[in-house]
């Protein structure tokens, strides 16, 4: 019996794993390990980076493979490897922060709406729909443009428009679980309201939330890169993948590696996180 989702939630079915419904478990694990390594690299980027990312330390525009500069140097003589490492750190953790913020804010609102129902639900969801119906990215741009261009404001801008997506999904899940017999059973068995919420409903929502979030990171990585491409990200000289690509784009035809390498880093990030999302889904599906 395919239950028919209500008007609001239908927009947010979880996307199918792009790698066929059930990617091999081993593959999934491998992908997650890769992600773990990536995160470690990002975490210890400062230690791994051979040089200070913002200081000119070598000749200008050395091609990759140059002595001491495996990825070469940029037009200011900064070590591209170092900049890319730090850039990965910035982009990766920024994306995680955004997704986390969405998960937390959206989660709270979604759970509240789903649990209390009634006018609370109505009010919260009206609010959420309102945000959903606005063109998020544009609003984000407007916000950053208003607050001033820097990474912090960019994160704020995105976070402001990012949570409703989660609120919707989580609220929908909460509602569906709340309607399950086991919740009624718990009620009859005399479990307190809070207990029902946190032991009989929320745990069921977590997997969906996790999968949704992990599938989302990739988008955020790209969005961030795009915004900093437009100059809404880290102001120079701080390293940031999107911005580094954008600023040095003029060199594409003379010293291609300067803009291309950070761009590739973005590609790897978002690709890995996409695959990661699917992997998470697969593994959770297997566990179910």
């Amino acid at each position: 019996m395919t239950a028919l989702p209500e008007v609001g939630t239908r927009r947010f079915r979880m996307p199918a794993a792009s790698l066929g419904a059930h990617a091999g478990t081993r593959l999934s694990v491998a992908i997650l390990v890769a992600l773990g390594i990536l995160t470690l690299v990002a975490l210890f980027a400062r230690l791994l980076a051979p040089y200070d990312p913002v200081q000119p330390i070598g000749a200008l525009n050395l091609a990759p493979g140059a002595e001491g500069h495996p990825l070469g140097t940029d037009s200011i003589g900064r070590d591209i490897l170092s900049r890319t490492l730090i850039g990965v750190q910035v982009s990766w953790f920024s994306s995680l922060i955004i997704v986390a913020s969405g998960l937390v804010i959206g989660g709270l609102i979604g759970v509240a709406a789903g649990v209390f129902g009634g006018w609370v639900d109505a009010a919260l969801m009206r609010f959420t729909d309102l945000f959903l119906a606005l063109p998020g990215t544009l609003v984000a741009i407007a916000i950053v443009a208003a607050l001033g261009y820097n990474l912090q404001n960019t994160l704020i801008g995105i976070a402001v428009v990012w949570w409703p997506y989660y609120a919707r999904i989580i609220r929908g899940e909460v509602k569906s679980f709340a309607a399950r017999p086991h919740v009624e059973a718990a009620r009859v068995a005399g479990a307190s309201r809070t207990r029902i919420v946190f032991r009989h409903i929320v745990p069921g929502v977590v997997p969906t939330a996790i999968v949704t979030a992990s599938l989302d990171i990739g988008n955020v990585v790209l969005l961030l890169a795009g915004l900093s491409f437009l100059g809404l990200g880290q102001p120079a000289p701080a390293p940031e993948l999107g911005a580094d690509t954008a600023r040095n784009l003029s060199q594409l035809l003379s010293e291609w590696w300067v803009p291309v390498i950070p761009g590739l880093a973005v590609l790897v990030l978002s690709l890995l996180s996409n695959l990661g999302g699917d992997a998470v889904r697969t593994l959770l599906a297997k566990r179910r």
Partner: protein
Amino acid sequence: MTDVATVRDLEVSLVRDGVRSDVLRGIDLSVRSGEILGMVGESGSGKSVLALAMMGLLPTSAQPRVGGTVGIGDTDMVNGRPDELRAVRRNELGVIFQDPMTSLNPTMRVGAQIDESTHDSAESLRLMTAVGIADAALRFTVYPHELSGGLRQRIMAAIAVAGRPSLIIADEPTTALDVTVQAQVLDLLRELRDEFGCSVVLITHDLAVAAQIADRVAVMYAGRIAELGPTEEIIHRPTHPYTVGLLRSRLSLDTPRDRRLLTLRPETASAAERLKGCAYHSRCPLAVEQCGVEQPPLAPAAEGTAEVSSTEHVRACWRSVSDVQGYTHDTLDAPPIAAAPSSGASDATQPAVLITGLTTVFTLKGGGRRRRQVHALRGIDLSVAAGEAVSIVGESGSGKSTLLRVIAGLAPATTGRVQLAGRGAQMVFQDAGSSLTPWLTVGDILRERLRPLKLDRAATARRIGDSLEAIGLPETVSTLRPAQLSGGQRQRVALTRATIIPPSVLLCDEPTSALDASLAASVLNLIRELRSSLDMTVLFVTHDLAVARLMGDRVVVMTQGTIVESGEADAVIRHPEHEYTRSLLASVPEIGVLS
């Protein structure tokens, strides 16, 4: 007399959540033109897979491996080319699936869905009338969700008979329907056969249903045919222990109320060793060592005598017919259950449940402004004495479940009031599986019930262990999650949760409707025992009159939110007063008791 379908040592193995298992293990049978063949078996016996295999529609997602042949007309549904199979489905086959709601395209007008088979609206309309749909022209343009269950199933039937198929495969066509509608659908099938002269394969888990209209019955067990023969033969002279078991564990309107219900021995053997010999041997009361090692072939039942009849009635068992039939004749008597004591002691001052002028109205919020009011209960007055057991019978929508939910405090009382005695009420739900929180262990679930007692760890553990033991579950179960339990075990856990602290009133909402006959019987036994041992009042909701009669000292018949009849169980069954009760009784599929 030619056969419309011939199945020759059909073997099918499917992958279910990652594990490949043999679902059909050498099926041989043929469907004769114009006959109704009943396929009977518990869930998991492979009967539905057989149906799909006959249509050549085994789910690709299950990566089926198929051996043998299914001949329909002169096409082999196993090895034929896709377009050939489609041709057969178009011209030779008609299908009726279990759930008419999900089996019809929700976004397509029913007429159009019939047209897909008839390619001619006039014909479609004619068929709709033929399958007994009043003012077909009107209904032609509605969507499935705008029709009642019975009508939907009739639409399915119209689709099935479209193009005058030589064979209609009906897979549990009645299970999702109310008793009264069930009867109608069965009649419909018979009429279709008579009118269109097609054969029908009727797949069902209920011997009685098959018995009502089938010419021949095939009893399936674990992917093989245990016994196959004329309905009369199977019902009255079963020659396979399993058939015997089914017949005896089946609940009927004259099953003795004062005795334990007879049940099949629960499965103990592992899948591997079951499949070594006769799959039934581990549960078979008559098993001999040969049964455990060698698969019995399908052989004529009538011992070596008239060759003619030999094809009629076949069985797969090492024991001789006489042994089996001998067995069926002795041990009619089952041990009596401890007579519910309290029913006598109903001099209890105040009743356990007192319901006065109870009405409940739901407002369904259709999208947008449109709201619909549903009067689920229209003035219920009911008083249940302490220790009494009352069965509430009714069809879906009669409000019986709502009544129970109101008592349990899950649904609101719009007017009127419900009073419960001291220790309040606990409830056992229809689908035990979904009534247990999937991610909590049995232990967690039970512990939750015990929290008010503020016991220390050890005590709690002991209490849980004991009550599990009491209900016939190993203590180790407490570390498992519901998904790791069998259906029967889950229902037992649910019962434990309800009774680990004995309530005054135990509310049972069709606790057995999802279980196989034998399992159901054992659960019912359990409830009755608990009732007497824990001295509980029981309110038992069911759609099955036979069950109602067995579980209740008193039977209350409900329809459209009101109580139409109430009285001592046998009285209501034997001498129904309200005509609704009569119609219910009339439509109960019955088969004579074992002679």
